[in-house]
C-alpha cells in the first residue's frame, strides 16, 4: 500500500472491491494491484465484469464496498491520466466525419464552447495520429475506413491528454487474425515506448500471448491476477468457472477446455450436441459471448 516515494505508484489498486450492476454483484471482494507500465490482458466469459471493472476504474461505477485507487488517487470521473477505448459500436462506420475531427473531438472535449483547436491542440492530434501511424487515413471519412483502421483512430483518441493508463475494451472484436496481430503489436509498442500501463480485455488469450506481462482472469465474481503460467491453469480456472476446466497447450497456443469444449471458441456452439447434462454450467457463462471467428 504505502510504496516508497521513489517507486512509481501502482496504476490500479483495489482493496476488497465489490462491484454491482443493478443490485447484482459482478465482482466480489477483489484485491489486486496493477503496476505502472504493465501490460495486463483481461480475460473471462461475458458478464464476468471486464467492462464493469474498467468503468469502475474510470469512476463511472462506484464500488459497492471496498476501495479502488487509480495512479495513487481514488477513482473519479474525468481523470485525464486514463485513456479509454470503449467497445466498438457499429454506428461509427456510418459517420461521415474525418478521422482527424473524430480524434480532435476529444481535445478538451468536456469544456463548453466551440470545437475549435488552437495550435497546441492540433499538435496533440497530430502526435496521437503519428503514434498509431494514422496521419494519412485520418483525412478520410470514418465511413470509408476499414475496421482495423478505425481501431487505430480509436487508439489515437485514447492517447489525447498523454495518459499513463490505457483501458482498452475488446479492441480485437470483429477483426480478422492479421488485424488482431497488428492491433496487439501496436498497443505493445505504445505501451513500451510511452511507459504506460495497459488493461486490454479480450475473449481469447492467444493473440495476446506475446505482448502481455500478466493476465487478469475474471469469472464467477472472482479475479485471478498473475503470469500466464500462474493463472491459466486447470485449478485456477476451474475455481473461476465453477466447473472442471482443462488447459491444453498446443504449439505455443493455449486452449481453455471444459470437457471437450473450447471455452473461448465454442461460445455459441453449445446447443448443438449437449442440450442436457454438464453443458448448462458453461452455457450460462457464455450465453452472450461474441464469437471472434464466426
Amino acid at each position, binding site marked *: 500500500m504505502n510504496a516508497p516515494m521513489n517507486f512509481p505508484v501502482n496504476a490500479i489498486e483495489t482493496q476488497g472491491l465489490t462491484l454491482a450492476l443493478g443490485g447484482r454483484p459482478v465482482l466480489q471482494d477483489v484485491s489486486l494491484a496493477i503496476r505502472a507500465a504493465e501490460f495486463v490482458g483481461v480475460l473471462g466469459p461475458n458478464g464476468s465484469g471486464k467492462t464493469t471493472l474498467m468503468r469502475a476504474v474510470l469512476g463511472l461505477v462506484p464500488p459497492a464496498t471496498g476501495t479502488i485507487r487509480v495512479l495513487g488517487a481514488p477513482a473519479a470521473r474525468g481523470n485525464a491520466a486514463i485513456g479509454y477505448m470503449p467497445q466498438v459500436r457499429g454506428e461509427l462506420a456510418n459517420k461521415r466525419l474525418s478521422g*482527424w475531427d473524430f480524434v480532435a473531438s476529444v481535445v478538451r472535449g*468536456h*469544456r463548453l464552447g466551440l470545437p475549435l483547436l488552437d495550435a497546441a491542440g492540433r499538435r496533440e492530434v497530430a502526435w496521437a495520429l503519428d503514434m498509431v501511424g494514422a496521419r494519412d487515413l485520418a483525412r478520410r471519412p470514418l465511413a470509408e475506413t476499414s475496421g482495423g483502421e478505425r481501431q487505430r483512430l480509436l487508439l489515437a483518441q485514447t492517447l489525447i491528454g498523454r495518459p499513463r493508463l490505457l483501458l482498452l475494451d475488446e479492441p480485437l472484436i470483429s477483426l480478422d487474425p492479421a488485424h488482431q496481430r497488428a492491433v496487439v503489436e501496436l498497443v505493445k509498442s505504445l505501451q513500451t515506448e510511452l511507459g504506460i500501463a495497459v488493461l486490454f480485455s479480450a475473449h481469447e488469450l492467444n493473440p495476446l500471448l506475446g505482448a502481455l506481462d500478466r493476465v487478469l482472469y475474471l469469472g464467477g465474481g472472482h479475479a485471478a491476477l498473475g503470469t500466464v503460467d500462474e493463472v491459466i491453469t486447470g485449478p485456477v480456472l476451474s475455481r473461476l468457472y465453477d466447473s472442471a476446466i482443462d488447459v491444453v497447450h498446443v504449439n505455443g497456443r493455449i486452449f481453455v477446455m471444459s470437457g471437450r469444449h473450447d471455452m473461448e471458441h465454442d461460445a455459441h456452439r453449445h446447443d448443438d450436441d449437449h442440450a442436457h447434462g454438464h453443458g448448462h454450467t458453461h452455457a450460462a457463462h457464455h450465453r452472450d459471448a461474441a464469437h471472434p471467428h464466426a
Partner: protein
Amino acid sequence: MVTATRMPPTTATRRIRMLDYDFMRHAFAAAAIVAVVAGLVGYFLVLRGQTFAGHALAHVGFTGATGAVLVGASPLAGLVVATVAAGVGMGFAGERLAQRDVAIGMVLSLALSLGLLFLHFFTAYATQVTALLFGNVLAVDVDTLWVLLALGVLSLGALGVIARPLLFASLQPELAEAKGVNLRIFAVLFLAIVAVATAECAQIVGVLLVFTLMVGPAAAAQRLTSRIGWGLALSAGLALAEAWGGIALAYWTDWPSSFWITALSAAVYLAAARRSTMSRTS
C-alpha cells in the same frame, strides 16, 4: 418558367418588383434566419443520428399550434412551447425512447390527430391547417420576423455554448462520460435547441416538411465534406440557397414555396449522395 428566356433587363425589372413587396422581403428575411438555424442545428442532428427526433418534434408542434389557436393564443407560441416540452421530455427519456420506434410512431399519430381534433372545435381557423402542415412563408409579418430572429439567436447561442461537449458526446459517448461530460444534460439541452429550430422551420415549410430544412442540407453537406467547420458552413449555405431559391421559384411559378424548397433540398441531397458515391468508386 417563361421568365428565364426573357431579356436581362426584363428579368432585372422582375427581380426588383419581387422585392418591392413587403411580404416578399419578409419571406426572404424569415427564410434566411430559419435556414441558418436549421442548417447548423441540423448538422448536429444528422451527426447524432437523431433526424427522426426532429420529425417527431414537428408533429408534436402541430398539436401545440392548434391547441394554442383553440385557446386564442398565437400558433407560433403553441408550437414553440409544445416542441420544447417534447424535446426536453425526449432528452430525459433518452436511450429508452430512442429504440422504440413503434412507441414514437404512436405518439406522432396521436399528436397529429389531437391537432385535428382541436381544429375541429375551432372551425373558423380551419384554413390554418394547410399553413401549419405545409408552411406559409409569404404570410410572415414583421412581428413574427422579430420572434424568429430572437428564437434563432437564442438557439444558435445555446448551440455555440455546448457545441464542443455535444460533439464529443455525439461521437464517443462512453469516452465523453468517462472524461466528465454529463451525457443526459447535453442530450436534453440539444433537443431543446432542436425543438426551437423545428418550430422555426415549421413557419417556413410547415410541420410535415421540417425534414426539408433540418435534415436535407445537413445530410448533403456531410456527403460533400468530412470536416466539421466546412460541413457546418456548407449546411447553412445550402439551406439558405434552397429556401431563397424555393421562394423565388414560387414567386415566378405561383406554385407553393414549400414544394420548391423541398424539391431543391431533395435534388441537392441526391446530387451530393451521387457525387460522394462516384468519388469513392473512382
